[in-house]
């Protein structure tokens, strides 16, 4: 079995007053066993629809879905396994903790639904609650929980079932910033301990980068790009990926020719050598540089700027935010942003030289 979840050509149409809205335009995904896989994209991109289709809460219009080698949905074969018969569990954005049950009853529900009874249930519930750090909350009414605790109960309820596939729908988005970061660490921890294959949906790129083994970036019902966090951040192949994940400055460019280090292009900043996607340099139309990858230094007076990928400029404005300093710099008639650590500071109006590492210059095709 090579993939725990296989999604093929998934299509979803919603009827509108006039015509249909195609929310999913042929999604293909393969999630490996034990993998933490994230669907990342802006709201309306179809990531939640994809997740809910995998869960069986929505019935797609076309395509097929297989979980652990078992086909749970096939438009062609007319096969739809209902949500309760799929080997999955799910955590909802709203937590969906049942208010009329205690914490223990909430967590025991999936086991009861599987017709289990007796001391085994108590044991597994206690274990699941232990794992999310709520060991003492068994008899607490669900209504007396904080947001973070509800989140943990929802997690416990999802892992108690021991399903093959864990589905998480923006589970952290309703928490405040501090708690979100803490839960992120715990979630990653829990997942690697359990080794459960996880499909995660979020619009938060930072969350996606820090949690995932692999990420599928989605836009308008399509997967734009798929890769590991490092690949998507450092070597994006699409402008949407570059701009949606992290901050990206995009400059138009014209290809000049390959050289030893990469591919040489002409940009508004002058001629630069780009090391990423150089193999397709002859088709490059844009150059992407991230603000934090540019090193800024005070220009030595009287010394001409020379060398590869070094650009002379002048600081227009400085914005200090503690750990980082952000400079707005004018160079060759263009403005660009540079982020450096606040180790050293440069004043507005100072002349600077910018060093742009070849291996951080990304070429994108049209």
């Amino acid at each position, binding site marked *: 079995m090579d993939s725990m979840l296989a999604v093929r050509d998934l299509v979803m149409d919603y009827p509108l007053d006039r015509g249909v809205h195609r929310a999913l335009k042929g999604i293909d995904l393969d999630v490996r066993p034990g993998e933490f896989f994230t669907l990342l994209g802006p709201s*309306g991109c179809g990531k939640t629809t994809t997740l809910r289709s995998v869960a069986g809460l*929505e019935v797609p219009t076309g395509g097929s879905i297989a979980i652990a080698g078992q086909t749970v949905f096939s438009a062609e074969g007319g096969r739809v396994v209902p949500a309760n018969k799929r080997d999955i569990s799910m955590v909802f954005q709203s937590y969906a903790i049942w208010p009329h049950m205690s914490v223990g009853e909430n967590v025991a529900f999936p086991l009861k639904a599987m017709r289990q009874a007796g001391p085994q249930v108590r044991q597994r519930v206690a274990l699941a609650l232990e794992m999310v750090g709520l060991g003492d909350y068994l008899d607490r009414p669900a209504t007396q929980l904080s947001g973070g605790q509800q989140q943990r109960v929802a997690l416990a309820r999802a892992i108690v079932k021991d399903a093959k596939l864990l589905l998480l729908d923006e589970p952290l988005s309703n928490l405040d910033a501090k708690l979100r970061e803490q839960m992120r660490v715990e979630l990653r921890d829990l997942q690697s301990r359990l080794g459960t294959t996880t499909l995660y949906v979020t619009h938060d790129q930072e969350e996606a980068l820090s949690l995932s083994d692999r990420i599928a970036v989605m836009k308008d019902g399509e997967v734009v790009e798929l890769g590991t966090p490092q690949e998507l951040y450092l070597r994006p192949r699409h402008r949407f990926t570059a701009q949606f994940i992290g901050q990206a400055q995009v400059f138009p460019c014209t290809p000049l020719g390959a050289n030893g280090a990469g591919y040489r292009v002409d940009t508004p900043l002058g001629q630069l050598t780009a090391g990423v996607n150089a193999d397709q340099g002859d088709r490059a139309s844009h150059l992407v540089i991230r603000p934090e990858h540019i090193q800024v230094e005070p220009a030595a007076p009287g010394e001409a700027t020379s060398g590869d990928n070094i650009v002379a400029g002048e600081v227009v404005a400085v914005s200090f935010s503690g750990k980082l300093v952000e400079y707005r710099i004018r160079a060759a008639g263009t403005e660009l942003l540079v982020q450096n650590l606040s180790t050293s500071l440069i004043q507005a109006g100072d002349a600077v030289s910018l060093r742009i590492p070849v291996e951080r210059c990304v070429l994108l095709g049209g």
Partner: protein
Amino acid sequence: MATTVLEPTRAAPRSNWRQSGAWMPVLGVGALLVWLVVVPLILLLISSVRPTGFPTDPGFTLQHYVDTYTDRRFWELAGNTAIFAVGSTLFALLIGITLAWLVERTDMPLKGLVRTMIILPMATPPVLLAIAWVMLLSPRTGEINALLSALFGFEDAVFNIYSLTGMIFVEGLSLVPSTFLILSPAFRNMDPSLEEAAMVSGAGIGTLLRRVVLPLLTPAILAAGVFLLIVGFVVFDIPGAIGLPAGIFTLSSRIYYLAHENPTGLPDFGQISAMAIFFLGGLILMAFGYQHYTRRASRFTTITGKGFRPRSFKLRGWRWPAFAGAAFYFTLAVLAPLAILLWTSFMPYQTGISADAVGLLTTDNHETFFSNRFAVRATTNSVTIALVAATVVALVSLLVSWIVVKSKAPGRKVIDILSFMPLAIPGVLIGLALIYVYLTVNFLPIYGSIWIIVIAYITTYLSFGSRTTHGVMLQIHNDLEDAARTSGAGWGRTMRRIVVPLAAPAIAAVWVWVLAHCMRELSSALMLQGRTNETLPVLLYGYWTGGEPNKAAAVGVWLILALLIVVGVWQFLTRRREA
């Protein structure tokens, strides 16, 4: 972004109802509604074009329509019904709006007590209210007329209950609790920041009321108005108890008259049906109007958050006069009628309240009520009917709401409309249509039994029940149900363990409300009256029209007592749900 709207977590769930095992209840509820609502209406329509007026007889004629609609008396009847409905609606709105404003938005004293005083009259069956007011205001023997004549020496009676005005007065009184219950949430939920924003913008009290408060309340008031209008058109109790003996007819009492006391001796079903079709058309239109306005009203109230205290208007010197006004309403709607009923129930024959009559006091009527086997049977019938109908309505309402609000089942809009339509069908017409149905079909021999009345009540109260459960269904987040499904629970377990417990308070409130209304409902039970299936209100109406007011009063006193308890429980449940 336009596509955000289509993010299905926020839209209604597209649950795969076919696969989830939910198709059985969907089909079942659909079939039940067709049987309860569509079949009777179709038979009504067929009956109107049969020469004999009976659905299974052969032939086709439009003569009933011609006869009905060319008759001047029909248009007189329509006019009377309209005057009665509009008059009682305006009267009830006037009192209801004033009371709702006083309770919700002013510093009137003893608000809790006032609220109870306004809702308790629900326990008085309209037919009893009518009987009591006849005892108080009839031109010859009316207690108040006699008192006024004695005090001021009037020659003639000051008031005459046997008039359209009299009927409007009593009907208006009986509609006030419903008006109050519909309107008070609108007054309560009005976001004070909207008013404050207007005042900060420089609006005076007059402008504030005219430009901000009234427009915000308009949908709720219109919704209440249309609802009251529908009730005014369909109600039988008061026109039947006051107007019928005096020959002042409205739609419902005329239909009853033609069915039971037709001068020719035989019910004129063809003419009744032809007449009914006209009103049904209008009423169903009004029902849709009502639905339209309630949607707008809820849109206006749900945009506001919770956790604010509305500004309360300072009444200053008017605090106690305002309380006295509310107490006066309570006197008219409960105290005075109950007093005269109590007095009459302890008298051997109808006689005015006086010191001389105290010697006549007797408990005979009450003893009769508890020993007479007809009375005992009527009580058993009423309680059985009420318990069964209330339980069925509560369960079916829940299913209907789940299908309409939560599922994506095809045809759910039809189910919504079918469950709502009976609101606009007069009880006498439901009774009439059920006579057609159960005289036509032979496989259900329930004609003349209590079960045909149970079916009539289920049909009648399904609209109230399902509207109430709609509300609570909307409040249950879709994720709660989805979470059960992804936890491995099928449709049945999800309903049993998640949906029903979460909706329990609303289900209980519906159950008790229907119970109370089944105990007091007269019209369809009267139409469906057989030899052994009479209910308490039917027994009471029989005593009253048979010239035994004292026995009627004794039955009434005990009925009110039982209903007071039920209404009390209902209010308790409702308030706990709101809290």
